[in-house]
């Protein structure tokens, strides 16, 4: 090697070290000539070696789809099974470089059933090449790919109108395809769109400008790829430093390592740690080549802070005046990646930046048809389906909308059982936390507003094996109501029922303390009791009530409040004679006129005509059994 040559290679390497990197997504099916295009870019940029080329020529003859020409597609299909099927079913990464740039191509298949592969390839791409067959123009697949490119936030699109050789390099055909595509794309958020007429097979406008399309004034494919400006696509405004690794080799050094998600961090910057809110100053930044003054994405750095503040992996450093959203609750576009359909009722792991927590679905707002972009309501998402969802996480996450920040706006969901990556999501900036539905779904919210429980009557009945009803025992003072009520409560307790007992003296000593025994106060007193019964019955509890409740009108009102189906009127049919013997002290006071408003004496006691069960106090032994039988027969307790 001469000295001049040595100098030459040195300057080549010096220059080459400074080249930047462009990540490209290509999507399309075998028929589009996508693989042919990539193969040609690789071939014509001299990336192919002799032995690969010899193998390629051999394979082309044996299993190619390009007639006598070299089938560049064969170069790309790596795995045996795929080669046999003649389709590319996964994301394949290709590498080539020119004097100006290094390129990584994420090569993905085009069919709808490979949406997940395309989404994967798109996630890291700066630019997408979409192939359109000049003979067919913009088809459903083109629209689907464009939608996915927009969904994944790729800012630059090149529409390669391929197979121009088959339409006689006709400018009008090219123009009408451009026109049609522009019309369709207006709703989608892609800032930079370009059209290039090519023939991948023949090489027109791929690596060199074609002389067969003099009407085309733009750049050929390779030149375009070499010059498109992408470095300003990164977010340099909002500092997001998601702590990836706490580096603590000695007691004197405590560094926080990460790959800069966005924004710029400088020595001396005041930073705030999330979620603690503690602040400190950046004292040093260690990059891959040692100490540096500042750091920007996508550099991988370690910073040290002036103060001992509490920061661990999954937490974030930011500038105090530029905060991300810090919430547990957000909305996202989700792509389902797993063969196993979504189970919307379980918790998933969510990995967002360096932070892993758990998340559950609150709502699937709609599913998007990737071909028509129409929305529909669904209960779950299946493989390759895309939908808009609302999620709640266990720990808060620190995010920005995906449109603003690809790094802090993206996440993956991991199945808790299989550990597969089952879905990927892009966070939407739309509703504030409080306006989003949570697992208490819309219907429930209305119920709560109405005061309806979220546990249904059926669920309560299943749990307690009983109907929430009221056993209302009426009868004269001293008729033995309380005796029956208390023994019933004991018996039900033993049988496992959930029952509560209310009687006159308990309620009058508290809830109805200010009321006396006048008819109007008595009515109010019993109204209160009935309201309590209703609340308890609604919650599935059996209530045993022992109240004189002397008039039909009062008992009617009580039944009304509680609900007639839950109101069981038990009449303890005792003669005044019996009562006087049973409670002599009370009736002596009545005789002396010391106690007034006593039903059966100075007030009417109306014998109930509509009682569900009439018992005689003399049959004390059997009354309890009869009442229990009544509850059994009425399927009040137990239900089964």
């Amino acid at each position, binding site marked *: 090697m001469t000295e001049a040559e040595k100098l030459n290679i040195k300057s080549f390497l010096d220059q080459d070290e400074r080249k930047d*990197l462009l990540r490209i997504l290509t999507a399309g099916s075998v028929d589009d000539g996508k693989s042919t295009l990539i193969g040609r870019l690789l071939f014509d940029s001299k990336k192919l070696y002799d032995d690969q080329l010899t193998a390629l020529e051999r394979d082309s003859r044996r299993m190619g789809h390009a007639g006598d020409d070299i089938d560049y597609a064969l170069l790309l299909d790596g795995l045996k099974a795929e080669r046999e099927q003649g389709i590319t079913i996964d994301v394949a990464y290709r590498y080539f470089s020119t004097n100006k740039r290094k390129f990584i191509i994420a090569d993905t298949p085009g069919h709808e059933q490979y949406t997940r592969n395309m989404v994967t390839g798109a996630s890291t791409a700066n630019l997408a090449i979409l192939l359109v067959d000049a003979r067919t123009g913009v088809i459903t697949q083109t629209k689907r790919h464009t939608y996915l490119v927009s969904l994944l936030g790729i800012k630059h699109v090149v529409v390669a109108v391929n197979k121009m050789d088959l339409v006689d390099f006709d400018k009008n055909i090219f123009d009408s395809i451009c026109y049609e595509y522009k019309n369709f794309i207006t709703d989608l958020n892609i800032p930079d769109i370009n059209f290039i007429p090519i023939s991948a097979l023949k090489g027109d406008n791929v690596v060199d400008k074609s002389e067969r399309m003099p009407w085309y004034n733009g750049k050929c494919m390779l030149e375009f790829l070499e010059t498109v400006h992408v470095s300003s696509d990164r977010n340099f405004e909002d500092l997001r430093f998601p702590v990836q690794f706490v580096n603590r080799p000695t007691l004197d050094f405590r560094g926080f390592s990460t790959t800069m998600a966005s924004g710029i961090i400088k020595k001396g910057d005041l930073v705030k740690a999330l979620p603690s809110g503690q602040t400190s100053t950046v004292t040093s930044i260690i990059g891959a080549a040692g100490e540096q003054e500042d750091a920007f994405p996508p550099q991988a750095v370690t910073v040290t802070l002036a103060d001992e503040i509490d920061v661990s992996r999954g937490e974030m450093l930011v500038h105090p005046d530029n905060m991300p959203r810090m919430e547990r609750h957000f909305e996202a576009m989700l792509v389902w990646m797993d063969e196993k359909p979504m189970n919307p009722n379980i918790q998933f792991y969510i990995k967002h930046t360096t932070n892993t927590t758990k998340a559950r679905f609150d709502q699937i707002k709609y599913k998007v048809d990737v071909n028509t972009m129409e929305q529909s309501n669904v209960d779950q998402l299946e493989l390759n389906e895309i939908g808009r969802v609302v999620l709640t996480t266990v720990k808060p996450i620190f995010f920005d909308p995906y449109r603003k920040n690809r790094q802090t706006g993206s996440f*993956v969901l991991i199945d808790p059982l299989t550990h597969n990556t089952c879905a990927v999501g892009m966070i939407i900036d739309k509703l504030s936390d409080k306006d989003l539905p949570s697992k208490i779904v819309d219907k429930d919210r209305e119920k709560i507003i109405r005061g309806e429980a979220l546990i249904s009557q059926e669920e309560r009945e299943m749990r307690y094996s009983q109907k929430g009803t009221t056993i209302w025992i009426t009868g004269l003072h001293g008729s033995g109501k309380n005796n029956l009520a208390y023994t019933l409560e004991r018996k039900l307790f033993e049988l496992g029922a959930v029952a509560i007992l209310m009687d006159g003296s308990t309620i009058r000593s508290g809830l109805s303390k200010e009321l006396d025994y006048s008819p109007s106060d008595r009515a109010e007193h019993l109204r209160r009791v009935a309201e309590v019964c209703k609340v308890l019955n609604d919650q599935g509890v059996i209530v045993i009530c022992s109240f004189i409740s002397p008039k039909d009108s009062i008992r009617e009102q009580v039944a009304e409040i509680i609900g007639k189906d839950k109101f069981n009127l038990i009449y303890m049919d005792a003669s005044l004679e019996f009562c006087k013997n049973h409670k002599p002290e009370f009736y002596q006071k009545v005789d002396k006129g010391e106690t007034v408003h006593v039903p059966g004496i100075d007030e009417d006691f109306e014998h109930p005509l509509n009682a569900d069960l009439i018992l005689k106090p003399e049959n004390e032994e059997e009354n309890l059994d009869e009442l229990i039988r009544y509850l059994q027969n009425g399927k009040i307790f137990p239900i089964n």
Partner: protein
Amino acid sequence: MKKYNLSHLRELEAESIHIIREVAAEFENPVMLYSIGKDSSVMVRLAEKAFAPGKVPFPLMHIDSKWKFQEMVEFRDHYAKEKGWDLIVHYNKEAFESGVGPFSHGSKVHTDIMKTQALLEGLTKHGFDAAFGGARRDEEKSRAKERIYSFRDKFHQWDPKNQRPELWNIYNSKVHKGESIRVFPLSNWTELDIWQYIRLEQIPIVPLYYAKERPIVEYNGALVLVDDERMPKELAETAEMKMVRFRTLGCYPLTGAVESSADTIEEIVEEMMVTTKSERTTRVIDFDQEGSMEQKKREGYF
């Protein structure tokens, strides 16, 4: 205003460091497989950078087939000592003692027993749940679709149909007990990137990569170095001194040299750019059958 723009090498470097840190943060017991080759040397340098000023928080493991070039072993021991690496050297003791080798058993049996089996044995013995490897996607067609986190079942087997999607730079590290991953932080590097980085960072590499007069025999259609006395005498006697270098390093009887006078990185790169043979053609094991790498990967080879 300052331009915030990274060169492709610095971007690849950052990406690799991200991956290495992520594994260190999320796995219990990672290991970095060190093959002594140029890619391994780059990978180890990236790991050192990822945790600077601290030490790399996991060990390196070399699977020694016992048929490596002597210069490789010297290089390994020298740098392990100088840099203070926590280095494990593992080999298939039983097979070694019973005399398995490429000359007596052929490349296929030797590779299977002394490399693949030894690797699985080493991983199992130490219970590693993540193992870094220096493989690149541009090496071979079947690697183009390899994930950065490549999942292996309890038997260290790779199922091409059952790999997880990888989006953005978010890697799913959930594995069940007994399962493990292989991690390829250099996935997006090309051979040229590796050389440029070695040049930029002045990373030491085994001198075998540079051209020198060496005793060479022709064996199985490849130029093979007479590295020790285990080469059959009648073969070794045919040796001629040739100016050669090695593009890849492995077991000396299975690694072909190329005739070359390139003794600097610049010359190597220049040679590489005008060369007409891809890197792996100097590896004897690839020629077996179509899709052979894929087959080996399924069985647990890197």
